[in-house]
C-alpha cells in the first residue's frame, strides 16, 4: 500500500470522470430545457402562443417572465426539499410535505381567508394589493413552519426518524381536520383555499421571485456542503455515526433546510403535488451520482418540471388555464404507477 502511494501510480481519482460527465450532461440538458421552457413561458399568453415579443413586452416583463422564473425557482426548491427528505428518511418515496408543512400552510391560509371574511376585508388569493397578498404568502410560510415545528416538538427532535414521520402524519391529519372544519364554518374561505390546495403558479410575480431566489441561493449551497451526511446515511444510521458524523445534529440541520425550502415554495405556489417526489427520482434513474450532485440536479429537475407544467397548464385550453398542481398530480401519479409496475416486474423476474 505504502509502496503504491510512494510510487504515485495510484494517485489519480478513480472512475470519477465518466460519472461527472454523465451528471454534467444531465445538468446541461436540464438547463437547456429550462431555457427553452422559459422562452415558451414568455410566449404563452391567454390567447395562445405569440412570438410578437415587442407587442407583448409589457405582459412579458410584468407577468410572464416573473411567473416562469418563479415556477422554476419554486420547483427547484421542491426538488431540493424532496432530495433532502428522501436522503434523511432513507426512503425513495419520501415527500417534502411529510412533516406537516402542507397541512400547516393550508390551515394558515384558511385562517387568513376566514378572518378576512369575518372582518369584511376583501382579502383573497386574487388580491392584488401587495400587503394583502404578502399577508397570505406570509401566512402560508408561517403555517408551514408552524406545522413542521409542531411535528418536531411532538417527535422530540429528529433522533427517531420513524417517530418523526408518524408525528408528521398525526400533525397532517389534525391540522387538516381543523382546516376542513374552518372551511365548513366559513364557506367563503373555501374558494380561495381550493386554489391553494390545488397548487397554482398563477399568482407568481416579481415579489415572489425575490424570496424564492434568496431561499434557493441559501439552501442549495448549504445542503450540498453537507451532502456527504446523506451519502453516509445510505449505510444506516449506526454506520454513519461510526464514520464520525454527528447524525442527530446533521439531521436536524437538513430537516430545517427541507422545511424552509418547502415553506417558501408552498407559500408562493400552494400545494403543488409530486414535483418534490418525482424530481430526485428522475435524476437517480438517469445517472449514478452522490447526494452532492443529486441535490443540484434534483433542484434543476424540479424547476424544469414545474416550469413545464406551468407552460402546459397555460397552453392546453387558452384563455382558461389549469391549476398547475392538477397537471403535476396527474403526470406524477402516472409516473409513480409506472415506476411501481416496473419495480414489481423486476422483482418478479
Amino acid at each position, binding site marked *: *500500500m505504502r509502496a*503504491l*502511494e510512494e510510487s*504515485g501510480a*495510484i*494517485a*489519480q*481519482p*478513480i*472512475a470519477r470522470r*465518466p*460519472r461527472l460527465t454523465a451528471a454534467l450532461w444531465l445538468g446541461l440538458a436540464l438547463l437547456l430545457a429550462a431555457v427553452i421552457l422559459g422562452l415558451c413561458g414568455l410566449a404563452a399568453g391567454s390567447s395562445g402562443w405569440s412570438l410578437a415579443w415587442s407587442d407583448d413586452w409589457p405582459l412579458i416583463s410584468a407577468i410572464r417572465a416573473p411567473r416562469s422564473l418563479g415556477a422554476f425557482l419554486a420547483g427547484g426548491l421542491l426538488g431540493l426539499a424532496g432530495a433532502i427528505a428522501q436522503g434523511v428518511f*432513507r*426512503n*425513495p418515496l419520501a415527500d417534502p410535505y411529510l412533516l406537516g408543512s402542507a397541512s400547516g400552510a393550508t390551515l394558515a391560509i384558511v385562517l387568513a381567508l376566514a378572518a378576512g371574511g369575518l372582518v369584511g376585508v376583501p382579502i383573497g388569493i386574487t388580491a392584488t394589493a401587495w400587503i394583502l397578498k404578502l399577508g397570505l404568502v406570509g401566512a402560508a410560510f408561517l403555517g408551514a413552519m408552524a406545522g413542521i415545528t409542531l411535528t418536531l416538538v411532538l417527535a422530540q427532535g429528529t433522533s427517531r426518524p420513524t417517530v418523526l414521520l408518524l408525528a408528521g402524519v398525526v400533525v397532517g391529519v389534525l391540522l387538516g381536520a381543523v382546516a376542513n372544519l374552518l372551511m365548513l364554518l366559513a364557506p367563503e374561505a373555501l374558494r380561495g383555499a381550493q386554489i391553494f390546495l390545488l397548487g397554482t403558479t398563477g399568482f407568481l410575480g416579481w415579489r415572489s421571485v425575490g424570496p424564492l431566489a434568496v431561499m434557493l441561493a441559501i439552501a442549495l449551497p448549504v445542503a450540498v*456542503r*453537507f451532502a*456527504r*451526511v446523506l*451519502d*453516509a*446515511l*445510505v*449505510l*444506516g*444510521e*449506526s*454506520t454513519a*455515526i*461510526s*464514520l*464520525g*458524523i*454527528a447524525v442527530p445534529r446533521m439531521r436536524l440541520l437538513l430537516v430545517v433546510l427541507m422545511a424552509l425550502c418547502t415553506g417558501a415554495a408552498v407559500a408562493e405556489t400552494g400545494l403543488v403535488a409530486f414535483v418534490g417526489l418525482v424530481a430526485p427520482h428522475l435524476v*437517480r434513474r438517469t445517472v*449514478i*451520482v*452522490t*447526494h452532492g450532485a443529486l441535490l443540484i440536479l434534483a433542484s434543476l429537475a424540479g424547476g424544469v418540471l414545474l416550469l413545464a407544467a406551468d407552460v402546459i397548464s397555460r397552453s392546453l385550453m387558452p384563455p382558461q388555464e389549469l391549476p398547475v398542481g392538477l397537471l403535476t398530480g396527474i403526470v406524477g401519479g402516472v409516473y409513480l404507477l409506472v415506476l411501481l409496475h416496473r419495480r414489481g416486474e423486476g422483482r418478479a423476474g
Partner: protein
Amino acid sequence: MSAVSEGLLEADRVGVMRGPRRVLGNISAQFHGGAWTAIVGPNGAGKSTLLSTLAGLIRPKEGTVRLAGRPIQDWSDRERAQRLTWFGQSAVSEADIAAHEVVRLGRLPRYGLLGAPTAADEAAVRCALEESEATPFAKRRLGELSAGERQRVLLARAFSAEAPVALYDEPTIHLDAPHQRRLIHSLKSRARGGAVVISVLHDLTLALAADRLMVLADGEVRADGAPDEAFVRDTMTRVFDNAFSVEPLSSGGLVRWAAVPIL
C-alpha cells in the same frame, strides 16, 4: 500518545441494559494490536451489543470502554472514527449510490465532512476494492448488486478506513466459500499488521481459526482464550447445547479445529 497505547481497546466492567433487561453484564476484556479475536455465542448472547458498545455506538449503563487508554466518549466523533472502524449489520437503504462511492465513505473520517479525498484516500479505496474483489462492479449502483457483491463492497468500505481498531459484525454473511477464505486472510493480515481486529462470527469453524476466541452467553463472557485451549473449546460446545463437536484437523504440521454438527 505512546505507540503501545495506540490501538488498544478495553472494556472495563461494562454492563448494558435494554429497558429493564440486562443484555451485557460486567464484561472486562483488553484487546491488543496484533491479534484477531472472534466473538461467538448463541442467538441473543449479546455479541452484536458488545461490538456496538466497544465501537462507542451504545453507551454502557455501567463501566467504561477505553480506546487507546481514553474513555471512548471523550474522543471527538471524527477522532474516534479515525481510530476505530465498525462494520455492522445495519440496513442499507435502497441505494442508487455507486459502489466505489460507498467505499470512499470509509475514508470520510480522514478527509472530513467538508474536505476532499486526497490521492492517498483514493489509493486506499482502490486497494480496498481490490482486496474484496469488488473492482469489477465498483461503478455499479449498490442497490443493483447481489447480496454477496454488496457485502464485499461494504467490507471494502471498512477495509479502506485502515483504522488501527476494526470491529466486524457478521462479516462472512452472504459470502461464498472463496470470499469467506479471502476475508479471513484479510482479517488475519490486518491483525498481523498491528491492528486490533474483532469479529462476531456465526460460522464456528471460521471462528476457531482466530487467534483468540471469546465465548458469550446470556450477556456474559463464559470463556476467553486461544482456540487451542481445551476449556475454551469445551465452553463453546456447551453454550451451543453440544450441537456440534470440535474436531482437530492436521495440515502441514499445524493443528486446526473444525466444528462438526452432530446430526
